[in-house]
């Protein structure tokens, strides 16, 4: 019997190819989206879930209470050892210093080769807390001794090629020679640790991060503790409240609060700048379900529309002895077959599209994520659920109809299922599509706003060249003068400035304390530092609003501040700031304000503009060289910079970024989100148009007679098309009225993340509605025109 059903189902699919195509593509697309989103969400939920004791691992973090609360995923370097040695909370405590890309040089004979490798410094306990096994043996005393390292096979391949890496040496940062003592298994994708080279922390014995100091924190240092079973983090946090009184007696004791962050929550905890926000995962999940839902609605709609064609067959089958249950089963088999095909097509589509999807998100999700138990369950639920959902509705309706009427083709709308129900479903599709399009429009508007509005400085045609991290005199600002003047010699270079970091940058931020005009104590806010030479303003196009630029001297006594600093202090007239004294970072800088610059966006648009100072410190090591180049000769300019740079630092690798690209990178997650909503809205529109097509076909088949009569009575094609459009106009209007406020709510909620945001214009809501309207009219015209043109003699013939 089932075989018979399958056979008929297959013949039906073959016979009505276009409908089957719509059926299958709609569902396949919905399923593809759901699959990709499923992979994405499960990837993020699986982060670091493979560590044996992950529920006992905590990260030591700091809350800084000033004007606002800041969350730092680190603690002062002195804390971890106190935590480990003076208390019995934890089995193991470890520090890891992640310095990202570092210069690694491998010497063989006379030749040497330099590479950039993601490098971290850590202790043996790191590998006892976390499960990153060695390739061929168990961990014993690896990373105990200074100047030893374990590396991943990937790094081994990069540094040493095919020769066995154990026992080999490399030079880190032209400073320390390091011996490779172990090879790790490749680190999985779903972990927060991304280094390929792990050097023993003892190697950094002279560095600030290795000191037992309690003043200051560095975001590159992270500390993890494996608590003893039965320890309560809240109790431990209570104990840690006393730390400041003991180890940091000068500080305001409530300013720094040390906390334990559960390791499992790190990836989804955006407060401590985790990997991804829970809200985004939820949003994506809901979007996935919605798309799948509208694909199912579509499926039901078209299947129901088909019932008009199928009613005769069903009536006949009833007369021939088919029972309701048998007929329902036949329908379920048919929808099951279509679902199966659609899911397989969808699966194939997901596999094909996965690389593109990975590209958008910078991920490398693999198809193997589909072979997991959760996905299998997801697949089976869909495979069984969709046919039941989509097949039973038309199935029940058709199985209920009176055979006599069906045979005479005298079924009314009431018999083949309420048009009302279908209109509600289509309206639902319209609502989802309108919301998605509106959100897409807004996100792109905000991104345009963020990347094209006046930042307060000019990021165009600026090359940021990194400077090597050298301890010697050469790196002091004075030593860089010759580098700078040589670079400026080219006609393609317009300006250059030695600096700590660019005006708007996600890197090298340094907020510190400040005292103003002899006010007792420190101000309640932190001041952002933008150290640089006198050409900083010129190079980056920062405008002065009062006073003058500082003069570059052998000591730091002239300081520039921005307008926000004045506002924070309570002085709105910039002129009043000139000449006032300022003390920065305890005793680091004592100087006076000689100029006030116009506010510029020193962070992204999510955050307020900070109080900023710009000053010159001749004894400081600088990170970057900002170079304004001639845009039309960019290639020559960069070649020139590279040559000069390499002749100054022959042992180092020249690296540069364009400042405008660096700024655009700050909106990477928005760009990703935009790319996704764009795809999703297109798909929603696509699925929606198939829904419209299904409903129009139904209308046409039900109104063939009416059209015939109207034509006989002298109705014009236009009038008949108007007849079809009326209902859709109504549905879209209703959908717009419902979708508008919902979209408005989401849009406003999303925009709350931004301190500086674009306006919500009326066209963001009107455009999607117009788009749906246009789409419907096109489909109605195409499909309805044929019906309206048909010969009424045909449609009015009764037998």
């Amino acid at each position, binding site marked *: *019997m089932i075989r*018979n059903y399958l*056979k*008929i189902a297959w*013949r*039906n699919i073959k*016979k009505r190819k276009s409908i089957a195509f719509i059926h299958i593509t709609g569902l396949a697309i919905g399923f593809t989206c759901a699959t990709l989103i499923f992979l994405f969400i499960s990837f993020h939920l699986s982060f670091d879930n493979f560590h044996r004791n992950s529920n006992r691992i905590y990260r030591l973090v700091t809350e800084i209470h000033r004007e606002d609360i800041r969350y730092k995923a680190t603690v002062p370097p002195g804390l971890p050892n106190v935590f480990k040695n003076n208390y019995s909370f934890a089995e193991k405590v470890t520090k890891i210093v992640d310095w990202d890309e570092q210069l690694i040089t491998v010497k063989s004979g006379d030749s040497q080769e330099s590479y950039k490798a993601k490098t971290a410094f850590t202790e043996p306990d790191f590998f006892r807390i976390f499960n990153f096994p060695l390739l061929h043996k168990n961990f014993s005393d690896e990373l105990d001794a200074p100047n030893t390292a374990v590396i991943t096979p990937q790094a081994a391949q990069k540094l040493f090629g095919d020769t066995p890496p154990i026992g080999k040496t490399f030079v880190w940062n032209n400073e320390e020679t390091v011996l490779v003592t172990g090879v790790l298994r490749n680190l999985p994708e779903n972990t927060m640790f991304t280094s390929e080279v792990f050097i023993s922390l003892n190697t950094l014995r002279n560095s600030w991060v290795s000191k037992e100091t309690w003043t200051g924190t560095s975001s590159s240092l992270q500390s993890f503790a494996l608590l003893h079973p039965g320890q309560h983090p809240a109790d431990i946090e209570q104990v840690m409240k006393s730390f400041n009184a003991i180890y940091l007696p000068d500080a305001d004791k409530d300013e720094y609060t040390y906390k334990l962050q559960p390791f499992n929550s790190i990836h989804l905890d955006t407060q401590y700048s985790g990997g991804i926000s829970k809200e985004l995962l939820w949003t994506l999940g809901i979007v996935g379900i919605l798309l799948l839902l509208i694909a199912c609605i579509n499926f039901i709609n078209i299947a129901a529309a088909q019932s008009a064609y199928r009613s*005769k*067959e069903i009536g*006949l*089958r*009833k*007369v*021939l*002895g*088919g*029972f309701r249950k*048998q007929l329902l089963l036949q329908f379920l088999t048919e929808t099951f077959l279509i679902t199966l095909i659609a899911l397989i097509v969808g699966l194939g589509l997901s596999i094909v599209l996965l690389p593109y999807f990975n590209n958008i998100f910078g991920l490398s999700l693999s198809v193997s994520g589909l072979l997991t138990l959760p996905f299998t369950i997801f697949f089976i639920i869909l495979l069984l659920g969709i046919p039941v959902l989509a097949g039973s509705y038309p199935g029940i309706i058709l199985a209920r109809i*009176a*055979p*006599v009427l069906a*045979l005479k083709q005298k079924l009314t709308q009431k018999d083949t299922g309420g048009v009302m129900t279908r209109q509600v479903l289509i309206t639902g599709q319209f609502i989802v599509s309108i919301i998605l399009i509106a959100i897409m429009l807004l996100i792109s508007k905000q991104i345009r706003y963020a990347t094209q509005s006046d930042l307060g400085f000019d990021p165009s045609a600026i090359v940021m060249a990194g400077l090597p991290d050298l301890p010697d005199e050469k790196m002091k600002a004075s030593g860089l003068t010759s580098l700078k003047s040589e670079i400026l010699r080219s006609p393609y270079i317009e300006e250059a400035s030695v600096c700590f970091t660019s005006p708007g940058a996600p890197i090298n931020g340094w907020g510190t304390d400040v005292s103003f005009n002899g006010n007792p104590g420190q101000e309640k806010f932190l001041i952002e530092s933008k150290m640089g030479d006198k050409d900083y303003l010129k190079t980056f196009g920062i405008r002065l609003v009062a006073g003058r630029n500082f003069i570059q001297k052998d000591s730091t006594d002239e300081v520039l501040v921005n307008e926000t600093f004045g506002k924070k202090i309570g002085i709105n007239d910039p002129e009043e700031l000139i000449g006032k004294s300022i003390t920065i970072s305890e005793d680091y800088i004592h100087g006076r304000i000689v100029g006030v610059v116009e506010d510029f966006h020193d962070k992204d648009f999510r955050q307020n503009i900070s109080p900023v100072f710009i000053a010159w410190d001749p004894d400081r090591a600088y990170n970057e060289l900002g170079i304004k180049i001639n845009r039309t000769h960019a290639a020559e300019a960069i070649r020139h910079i590279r040559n000069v740079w390499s002749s100054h630092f022959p042992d180092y690798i020249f690296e540069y970024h364009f400042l405008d690209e660096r700024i655009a990178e700050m909106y990477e997650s928005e760009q990703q989100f935009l790319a996704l909503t764009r795809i999703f809205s297109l798909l929603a529109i696509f699925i929606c148009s198939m829904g419209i097509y299904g409903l129009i076909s139904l209308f046409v088949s039900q109104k063939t007679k009416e059209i015939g009569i109207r034509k006989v009575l002298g109705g014009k094609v236009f009038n008949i098309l108007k007849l079809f459009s009326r209902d859709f106009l109504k549905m879209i209007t209703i959908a717009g009225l419902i979708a508008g406020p919902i979209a408005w709510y989401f849009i406003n909620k999303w925009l709350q993340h931004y301190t500086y945001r674009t306006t919500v214009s009326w066209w963001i809501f009107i455009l999607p509605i117009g788009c749906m309207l246009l789409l419907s009219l096109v489909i109605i015209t195409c499909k309805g025109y044929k019906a309206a043109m048909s010969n009424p003699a045909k449609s009015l013939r009764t*037998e």
Partner: protein
Amino acid sequence: MLLQLNNIFKWVNNGGNTTFLLKDINLTVEEGEFISIMGPSGSGKTTLLNVIGMLDGFNEGEYHFLEKSVHQLREKHRSALYKEYIGFVFQAYHLIDELTVYENIETPLLYKKFKTAERKALVADMLDRFHIVGKKDLFPEQLSGGQQQLVGIARALVSRPKLILADEPTGNLNSRQGEEIMDLFKKLNEEGVTVIQVTHSEKNAAYGSRVIELLDGRNVTP
């Protein structure tokens, strides 16, 4: 006695006006009869046939079929009853377009859950009998009207019903094809199947053993 209708009334309400479709129909059909129902358009012929076939209900009266009181049966049992004993033949053949000749004939057996071997034998029997073995893998649209009606009759007969109800079985056929079909009914009747047909044609009615004439839903048989 195969079936008996006592004082059957059927009406519809159209905006306050009651229109009678069947008015006080009394009819007894014995097994082995060949009855022709005649009458002008709208006289209730098809309605009566549908009532007999239990595809349609009625408002008043009693209907006994093989000692069962149809008017007291629930819908479910009623449909079970006609599925068991009655075969239908239609003017427009009503074959399932997606199925081959073989499969069309097989369908009633599938619904009655016959075993595969049994089905094969029964269908082969029918194909043989109507000389359409060569056409068994064709789809309805590949057949002429007369051939389609042959398949329709084969399908109605395959599950060995006691009663064949035919609604103008020759209405869409030319006269030669029509004659062939009527000859077939005659033969079937002689083999013991009860036949009730609706027809417009005196000539076709003559094949039957008895004629029932309807006018405005009333039995006006002289």
